[in-house]
């Protein structure tokens, strides 16, 4: 048996199928994974993301620490509550984890890291934090609910007192704030608008039940995965890991090479790639025939060369299979993927596939 979130018993009561996810017993689906997916694209769904690891970083030199630990630059964060997505890299430029950090004050940042990488992340952060005199505290007292979908914010706001609801609904994109005793952030992993709310563990079950009563669907990790892939968002361990660098993982936009004097870990390894280009890139694939693309399937490039699918699934919104694949930099608009010995025709596109309920693929001009 794995670790359990404060919502575990409720998931069981709601009939969820429970699977191991990074050492946690988590709901993969309640009734229908596709139904849960559509609920988020069309109305609202709630996910238990309490397994994710929330880390408080406190100290006068916390900004300097994060400027060293992250390939993205927290100097971009000037308004309290503003969040930044970025990667922690090793010296070889490989991705240790991806994270969202919230700037709360000049001596206080909050990071959210993946459950499956918790131990190594905490060890890595602590190793560098001590030199900066930054205190690192894991918040095991919190639960986290993600309420996502076009109706997600309005439904979630009903959990709050009237004055607090107004404050929550006024949050700009990618900003989080302490509201009514909870930390409410306008962030997510679905390609829809919504909130991620950190709350005391004891609040989680009543909040979930209330959301259900407002018509918000309980959603499992299965739908979370199809939603994030449609939204063009990476999954750590699939699409990038310690053996791959951000520029070949569709994460070049999260690497701040300027200012040049900022000595983040991994910078030296990335310099030649940032200058000369990455030999490989991460692209989106859309299967033009029937079948389902899966991770680790071989991508065959016309004229030679090959790549590999890093994440693949059936897209409930597009009703065909989509994937991310790591391919040679020169790969054009059409490739093939080997599925059970057969070569299937696949179109190369620029992710995301879906945003705010709408397909972005039909109008796609092909790869960038």
């Amino acid at each position, binding site marked *: 048996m794995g670790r359990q979130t404060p919502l575990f018993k409720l998931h069981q009561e709601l009939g969820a199928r429970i699977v191991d996810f990074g050492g946690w017993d988590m709901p*993969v*689906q309640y009734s*229908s*994974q*596709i*139904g849960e997916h559509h609920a988020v694209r069309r109305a609202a769904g709630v996910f238990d993301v309490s397994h994710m690891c929330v880390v408080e970083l406190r100290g006068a030199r916390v900004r300097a620490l994060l400027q060293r630990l992250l390939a993205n630059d927290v100097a971009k964060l000037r308004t309290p509550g503003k969040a930044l997505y970025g990667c922690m890299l090793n010296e070889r430029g490989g991705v240790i984890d991806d994270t969202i950090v919230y700037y709360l004050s000049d001596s206080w940042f909050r990071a959210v890291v993946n459950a499956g990488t918790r131990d190594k992340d905490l060890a890595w952060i602590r190793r560098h934090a001590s030199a900066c005199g930054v205190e690192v505290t894991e918040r095991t007292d919190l639960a986290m609910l993600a309420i996502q979908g076009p109706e997600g914010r309005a439904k979630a706001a009903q959990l709050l007192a009237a004055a607090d609801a107004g404050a929550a609904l006024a949050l700009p994109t990618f900003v989080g704030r302490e509201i009514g005793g909870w930390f409410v952030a306008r962030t997510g992993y679905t390609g829809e608008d919504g909130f991620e709310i950190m709350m005391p563990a004891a609040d989680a079950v009543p909040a979930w039940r209330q959301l259900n009563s407002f018509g918000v669907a309980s959603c499992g990790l*299965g739908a979370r995965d*199809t939603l994030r892939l449609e939204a063009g968002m990476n999954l750590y361990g699939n699409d990038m890991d310690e053996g791959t660098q951000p520029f070949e993982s569709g994460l070049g936009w999260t690497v701040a090479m300027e200012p040049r004097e900022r000595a983040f870990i991994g910078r030296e390894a990335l310099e030649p790639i940032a200058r000369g280009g990455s030999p490989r890139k991460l692209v989106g694939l859309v299967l033009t025939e*029937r*079948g*389902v693309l*899966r991770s680790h399937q071989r991508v065959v490039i016309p004229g030679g060369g090959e790549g590999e699918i890093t994440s693949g*699934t*059936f897209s*409930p919104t597009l009703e065909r*299979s989509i994937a991310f694949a790591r391919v040679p930099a020169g790969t054009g608009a059409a490739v093939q993927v080997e599925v*059970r010995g057969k070569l299937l025709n696949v179109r190369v596109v620029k992710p995301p596939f879906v945003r705010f309920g709408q397909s972005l693929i039909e109008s796609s001009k092909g790869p960038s």
Partner: protein
Amino acid sequence: MSTVPADLKYTRSHEWVRTLADGTVAVGITDHAQHALGDLVFVEVPEAGRAVKAGEPCAVVESVKAASDVYAPLAGEVTAGNPKLKEKPETLNTDPYGEGWLMRLKPAPGALTGAALLSAADYQKVLEAEGG
């Protein structure tokens, strides 16, 4: 709780077998199997005329999550793959013992009597042992 019709035979790998009036058999996956797989989005059925051995992978069912092989419950020749599943793979979820059949087989001589198929009661015990 998944349904296990009493008039069918079963395998430990969650296929069902129905003997038809013309001596051929229909083969599908059980209610337990479709439930465990989740929403099915792609099904590959064998072509008519293909000879299969007992235990040989002969069809593929793919849910959103994963691809799974379906094994021939007995030796024989495929007389038909269910053509409806190409357009409507979700039929396997909604009607696993009826419209969701995967293939029809003409059993090889002695294959039907010789196959180690389970009764509904025995298959039910397999499910209980699996905790399902």
